[in-house]
């Protein structure tokens, strides 16, 4: 098991009170697993991803435990986390296009970064070059400034840089969101390639784009308003979801062969709750077509079939 998260709760501090962006998340990522983390904007998926590597104000650690390779991660401490960053856990940020210092040559920056982590640059160089080949970047990029690269090249460079220390877990935050569809596919496949060649053990791919996940993810985890809703293998998730939110989410996706001029795409009525003062119990309750009294309590995130976890009272009842 490469990542184990237990009861992780992270809030955002604001003047008007805590925004409860991540509530009681418990899940695991297996070795070699590419887990897609999906959900709409503001559901807490980026909060979850970032809190694992760089938990800074206004984010506030409330409780919970994170283990990587059975070793506990001190995610609450900015300094304490440093030995783990890059080597055990790494990130391809959402802002990959601006992630490199504009006034340093990429090679020089890489060298300074590695040396600052007490890693010899000259020893790493052959591997770095091999990986540049892997993502089809010329070795000349090392002598270039970030501004001389195109957006896609910068993205690939950051992918290489982030995975250079073969981290156990790679967090890929919205890495396909700013790209056109054909580049999206290429980047997604590169990510799989990285995993296959063990440049990283497992991947947490944060996105709101379910179609990308369908193509490359082994499992999908869906979040709603700061709570985990469902986690299952990709195929199961797409074809037989159990949580009412996931069902509605999947059914609102366009399908091949259906003409939407004749049949309007269905959405989910209502909008997500504000997390400054979220409703008690299941946060999907107010939009849920099958909600009942029991939903005033927070449903636990339970395994109802093998490797299929759901947080819904109705589903527990049905199975019982």
């Amino acid at each position, binding site marked *: 098991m490469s990542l184990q998260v237990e009861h992780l709760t992270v809030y955002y501090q604001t003047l008007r009170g805590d925004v409860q962006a991540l509530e009681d998340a418990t899940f695991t990522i297996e070795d070699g697993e590419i887990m897609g983390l999906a959900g709409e904007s503001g559901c807490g998926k980026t909060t979850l991803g970032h809190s694992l590597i760089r938990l800074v104000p206004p984010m506030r650690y409330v409780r919970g435990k994170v283990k990587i390779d059975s070793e506990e991660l001190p995610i609450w401490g900015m300094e304490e986390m440093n030995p783990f960053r890059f080597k055990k856990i790494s990130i391809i940020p959402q802002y990959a296009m601006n992630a490199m*210092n504009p006034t340093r040559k990429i090679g020089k920056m890489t060298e300074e970064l590695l040396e600052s*982590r007490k890693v010899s640059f000259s020893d790493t160089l052959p591997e770095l070059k091999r990986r540049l080949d892997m993502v089809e970047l010329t070795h000349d990029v090392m002598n270039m400034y970030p501004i001389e690269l195109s957006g896609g090249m910068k993205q690939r460079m950051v992918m290489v840089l982030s995975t250079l220390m073969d981290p156990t877990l790679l967090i890929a935050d919205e890495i396909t969101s700013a790209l056109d569809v054909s580049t999206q596919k290429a980047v997604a496949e590169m990510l799989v390639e990285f995993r296959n060649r063990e440049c990283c053990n497992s991947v947490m791919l944060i996105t709101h784009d379910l179609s990308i996940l369908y193509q490359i993810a082994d499992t999908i985890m869906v979040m709603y308003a700061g709570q985990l809703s469902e986690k299952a293998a990709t195929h199961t998730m797409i074809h037989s979801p159990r949580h009412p939110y996931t069902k509605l989410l999947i059914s609102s996706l366009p399908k091949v062969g259906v003409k939407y001029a004749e049949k309007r795409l269905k959405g989910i009525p209502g909008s997500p709750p504000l997390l400054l003062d979220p409703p008690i119990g299941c946060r999907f309750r107010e939009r849920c077509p099958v909600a009942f009294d029991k939903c005033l309590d927070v449903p636990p995130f339970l395994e109802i079939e093998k490797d299929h976890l759901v947080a819904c009272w109705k589903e527990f009842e049905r199975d019982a």
Partner: protein
Amino acid sequence: MRRYFSRKLLIYILTFFLAVTIDWLIPRFMPGDPVQNMLSRAMLRADAAEVMYGYYTKAFGLDVPIGQQYLNFWNALFHGDLGTSVYMFPTPVTKVLLRAVPYDIFLLIPSILLSWYAGNKFGAYAARSKWLDNTVSPLGYVLTATPYMWLGILLAWFFGIVLGKFPIAGAYSFNLVPHLSWMFIWDVLKHWFLPFASLFLVGFGGQAIGMRNMIIYELEADYSHYLEALGAPRSLVRKYAFRNAVLPQITGLALSLGVIVAGALVTEVVFSYPGIGYLLLAAIQNQDYFLIQGCFLFIIIGVLFANFVIDIVYLLIDPRTRTGMMGETA
């Protein structure tokens, strides 16, 4: 590269032409007549004054039509002739200016460079901790918002009058003749200190605030966050932030060096320090067209030259301009 510079040069020439034209126009918009002004001080008899008026008007070239005056002005300028000062008649303007410039350089170069260096160091340092930031930043804001002359007057009052430690007027004691001796040097330094301190303090506040804000901006930039996420130590993140934050500060430095010949008008007036600023005020009060023109000409050349230097320096230190420029030529 060539095209870049020739285009820049063209812009500079155009700017120079326009600025000098405005410089020529401005004194002539002032109400009054410089020659009349000069003669009234001489208190001549009416008929003598009339003769003298005709003579001086001709001597200053003010008797020809205004368009011709303008052409004559350019012609003289290309021959290095800035005219004769009305206020310090008959000294040529060039000579008057050259006498004042060393004082400006002596006063302003140290105060600008030191306040820039110290302000940047201090600002970067202040951005480091909340405690420092909360104490130093308000102080910086107060300093930079302080008018030069007010601070000058305060310093002159406190150190000059209350404590009696420093002289408050002139560049050296009135009873001394400039010569090379320790006594004279010590005297000059003592006269220099208060104007220097007032310029330094105000400049220091501004630089420190600017640097502090830039550093905080850079520390919140994406590349800083990325380095942190990869566990880079604070020293590396700060090093990068400082290097990038100092770029706009260099522009500021070059621009303030460019107006150096303008002197620090109000400071020099407060301390009667005989630099160009002091001269400019006297020139305006006496409607000395030629001296005003000369002072402004120095400022124009200084600013343009400083800008030109920044353009070149930026090419050397900021890869983004370099690529931008190459993209332009390609």
